[in-house]
């Protein structure tokens, strides 16, 4: 069990058994009761959507878009096929929550998807699973088989007359396939490249049909909302930030892993749950929402609560809830170099600013890190990121730029030192100590 801790948990309750992912275990935990209630009572579709709206469940994939609102965009009167897609292409560095949900509680996602399909009238769904976590894919397939055998999927679900087919689909590890339209292209068998929007997936999605795409964790929360009621779910979190959320804590903490906490929980509590800073060192900075969210320096971070609005106010994003903790041994230039390399490597190459810009950013940061920095490089970084941001087809350009801008903004001295002295402000032995592979000497 890789969910290491929880505070008032909802999503991860009762996952203690060694076969928690089995259907019978899930049913014992009251699983599929929400679905049964909806189908048996023939709950109107609008009522399901309203309940989700009331919960103020915000998309757990990163953008935090209100789920109920997204569902209401699906054309109700559309007579042809409609699709429902679950985005489990969890590729953002630092994020590993969907992996654990699918490994330990796959039926919650399946139930959530069936309810969503019912609410939007979709007859077919896909769960697009990151290709580099094969075990997750095979486990989800097993769960699908169980659900199908139990009459929870397929034709005439539980005798209600409602049909929903659900398929697992694995990618091959391209980060860009986590972008919803690139994901759709990939399911269609094409090269994973984002589409220009508009049209949005709700009107022109998979195979050109109306499609709704939600994150794994979002779907997993749906049965809870339907059981508890939207208002109760909202109250378990914070105003405008309903429910609990899984946070993937990584970096310089003693117990990196997934933690479920109510939205609005103070960051120090999360840090404490993760065992505190490794070696008792000082927090230097934190990336609160996955590698594409701007870094937040320690002083600001310690005052934040973990919810969409607070983190946004701190100048960053809650994103997917991937908290990357960095202590005082971290060279921020080196950290940014690694991040920039990731975005350069994962840019799909379709549109100019991202294809050319991510490469340029990486080259500049690489140059600074390797003692080749020039005096005007920091201005150049700023200018290149400005030229990328807001000018690309999808958000990857922004995702590559925001770390650069925030690292330079908050740790400008460190960058300037690198350029001037051709070496790091944090001595190499301290860095090595902080890496965890050497005995701490700080």
């Amino acid at each position, binding site marked *: 069990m890789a969910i290491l801790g929880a505070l008032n948990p909802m999503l991860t309750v009762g996952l203690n058994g060694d076969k928690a992912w089995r259907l019978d275990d899930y049913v014992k935990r009251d699983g599929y009761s929400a679905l049964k209630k909806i189908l048996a009572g023939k709950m109107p579709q609008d009522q399901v959507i309203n309940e989700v709206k009331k919960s103020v469940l915000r998309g757990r994939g990163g953008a935090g878009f209100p789920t109920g609102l997204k569902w209401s965009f699906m054309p109700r009167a559309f007579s042809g096929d409609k699709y429902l897609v679950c985005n489990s292409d969890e590729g953002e560095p630092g994020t590993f929550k969907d992996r654990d949900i699918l490994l330990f509680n796959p039926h919650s996602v399946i139930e959530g998807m069936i309810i969503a399909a019912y609410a939007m009238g979709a007859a077919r769904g896909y769960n697009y699973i990151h290709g580099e976590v094969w075990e997750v894919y095979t486990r989800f397939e097993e769960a699908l088989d169980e659900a199908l055998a139990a009459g929870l999927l397929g034709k005439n679900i539980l005798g209600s007359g409602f049909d929903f087919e659900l398929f697992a689909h694995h990618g091959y590890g391209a980060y860009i396939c986590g972008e919803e339209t690139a994901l759709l292209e990939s399911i269609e068998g094409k090269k994973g490249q984002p589409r220009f929007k508009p049209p949005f997936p709700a009107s022109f999605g998979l195979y050109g049909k109306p499609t709704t795409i939600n994150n794994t964790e979002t779907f997993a929360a749906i049965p809870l909302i339907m059981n508890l009621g939207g208002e109760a779910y909202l109250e378990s979190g914070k105003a405008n930030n309903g429910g609990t959320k899984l946070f993937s804590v990584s970096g310089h903490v003693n117990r990196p892993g997934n933690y479920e906490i109510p939205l609005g929980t103070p960051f120090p509590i999360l840090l404490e749950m993760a065992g505190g800073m490794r070696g008792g060192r000082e927090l230097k900075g934190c990336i609160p929402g996955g590698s594409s969210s701007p870094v937040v320096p320690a002083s600001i971070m310690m005052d934040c609560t973990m919810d969409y609005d607070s983190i946004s106010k701190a100048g960053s994003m809650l994103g997917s809830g991937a908290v990357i903790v960095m202590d005082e041994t971290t060279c921020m230039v080196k950290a940014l170099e690694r991040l920039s390399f990731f975005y*350069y490597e994962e840019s799909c190459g379709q*549109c100019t600013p991202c294809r050319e810009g991510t490469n*340029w950013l990486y*080259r500049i940061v690489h140059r600074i890190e390797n003692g080749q920095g020039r005096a005007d490089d920091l201005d*150049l970084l700023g200018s290149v990121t400005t*030229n990328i941001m807001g*000018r690309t*087809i999808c958000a990857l350009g922004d995702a590559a730029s925001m770390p650069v801008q925030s690292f330079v903004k908050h740790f400008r001295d460190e960058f300037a030192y690198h350029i001037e002295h051709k070496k790091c402000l944090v001595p190499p032995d301290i860095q090595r100590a902080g890496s965890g592979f050497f005995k701490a000497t700080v």
Partner: protein
Amino acid sequence: MLDIEIDGKQAQVPAGSTIMDAAQLVGAYIPHFCYHKKLSIAANCRMCLVQVEKAPKPMPACATPVTSGMKVFTHSELAVTAQKGVMEFLLINHPLDCPICDQGGECQLQDLAVGYGGSASRYQEAKRVVFHKDVGPLVSMQEMSRCIHCTRCVRFGQEIAGVMELGMANRNMHSEIQTFVGRTVDSELSGNMIDLCPVGALTSKPFRYSARSWELSRRKSISPHDSLGSNLTVQVKDNRVMRVLPRENEEINECWISDKDRFSYAGLNSAERLQKPMIRVDGALREVDWNVALDYVAHALKDITKTHGGEAIAALGSAHSTLEELHLLQKLTRGLGSGSVDFRPRRRDFSADGKLAGTPWLGLKLAQIGQLDAALVVGSFLRKDHPLFAQRLRQLARKSGKVSLISVTGDDPLISLHAQLTVSPEELTRALAAVVKAAAQLTNTALPAGLESIEPCATSQLIAQSLLAGEQRAIFLGNVAEQSAQAAQLHALAAELARLTGASFGFIGEAANSVGGYVAKALPTALNAYEMFAQPRQAYVLLGVEPELDCYNPQQAVAALKQAALVVMLTPFKPNAALDYADVLLPTTPFTETSGSFVNCEGRVQSFNGVARPLGDARPGWKVLRVLGNVLAIDGFDYDSSEQVRDEILAPDSLFVDGLDNGINGLSFSLGAVTAGLQRIAEVPIYFADPLVRHSDALQQTRDAAAPTARMCAATLAQTGITDGAQVRVRQGQAEALLTARADESVPPACVRVAAAHASTATLGDMFGAINVERA
């Protein structure tokens, strides 16, 4: 209609328009690379970013739909900053090797870099290097580092050519345009990718490094190849044609041309060009002066009319000849007392002659094809016979028009077909008759006599249904239908199907002047193009044809020519020396060195001027025939210009010819027997279709110019005991040729596909008809 304001200019645009559409309407230029009006929107270059009021970010003009009351600023600070930012990104990895780049001077990137690029680069790292590729003889991909990834070429392949031969592999800055590993670009429309490429990544292999764009004079011309009459810009340097580009004409070729139109110019500069008149003396051809040659021809023709009568002379023109040439040819022949003149050497069945209501044509305007609800093409190698006509049908099928094809091979037209029937040439009439019968049954109309025994299959019913639904439908008869031994029957069946369904019908036409030949009345009153060789004459005048390659039965044609006392060839090229039938060679000029007119398949008259001076002593065909008329003292040959000749045929300033009518009268249906033996299917390969393409070395290196093989389906191979790859002897009566057998499931059973118009099959007989195959 939506109101929009662009840079302060008001406009109204239809709903669904983009900002780019609106900008073009008001005349505001928005810089762009990936946008192309004929291709889908990619929005990937980001050059067209503009400011939209109330939008926080700059929006791509090509992909942003206009909303009512939208205000757009194309030159505001936000817009120009964004555009300059994109330009910087485009240039950081671009080699900037303009001085040695073939695109220099006509490069969109170069042009826009002047306005939006910096004077120095802030990028100081090493630039990306992209490995070059060899994708065949026409398109050069030698400098792929210049590519800016606009994917126009990729979208062209997917959407216009119908086959994705290029794609963008890899991701991030390592993305590169390439073919599937080891494959070449073989589309018959591939050259358009060179035009589409906004930089010097895709260039023309035959043209590259031969001239700079600013050294070339641009002259208008008309393609002499297929029946579309594509509008061309011919670029000339030092009186030599260096390059051919499309001249946009939305009603004909849109902004495309086929590779045949584009690269055939290489034949103009061929070493095989005939530059001096020649006369056969003591068995060998000798160069002589024009007056000697013309006197010789005149005397010889007069002698023959005296001794054998005018009917001993036959004249054969080509549907690639101009209207003026064909008019003078028939006038000269009739002046000599012969009615044996024709311009349709690849025809077998002339029984419609004399029964036609008017000049056969396409039956509708080319531009109307896009509005059809359904179309049926009968007997055509669509892609290879009419690349751009096929392209129009492809677009029609893409936007839900139902296109069906009945033909003699299962070649993929790269059109998503509604229905396809593949039958042997002899069964073509039956297949069409089945659709006629299905249409009669569906409309509860009395069945025409002669079709009682036909039983419509499911596919023919599907086709008939498609032709009955919707507003506009059309039936097109292709080259195979015209060349068929039952051409008149197919014509009559198509007419009947059109009557039953309310569809239009017509002929796609074999060549640039297939309609023009009728207008010029280059038609027999005595022997037709087939009979003039079946019943050998004393003298032949050949205009622009190479009979061993251009005739329905080359073996018969060559035999007749060999026995003739006089064979006069008016030709731009030296004929095959091994076939020593020619007695006099008169060097005429190809389309670039003469004025003239073509009448395309929709009856459109397109006159053109010469774009270069005649090579050597070659002279325009109309001048040669005009002087020959004078020397022969035939009346009415006193023209001073080709325009005078044209005005004798057409009303002045005609845009379209009069008398277009596909009606056929007095022909009863008789579907003919289906014989037991093997049948030949002869296509005319795209790059052997006329003398000019046959002399284009660039086109001759393509896959489409591969030597013909004897292609049969597995069942036929098994039946004849021949294996794939075996050497076989194919025979038609006395005629035979040695070929390699190939398995090809697109060929119907009991048929052998052996291409015509190639030297290796010039010894064979009828294009369609009985054939034997045996192990060599």
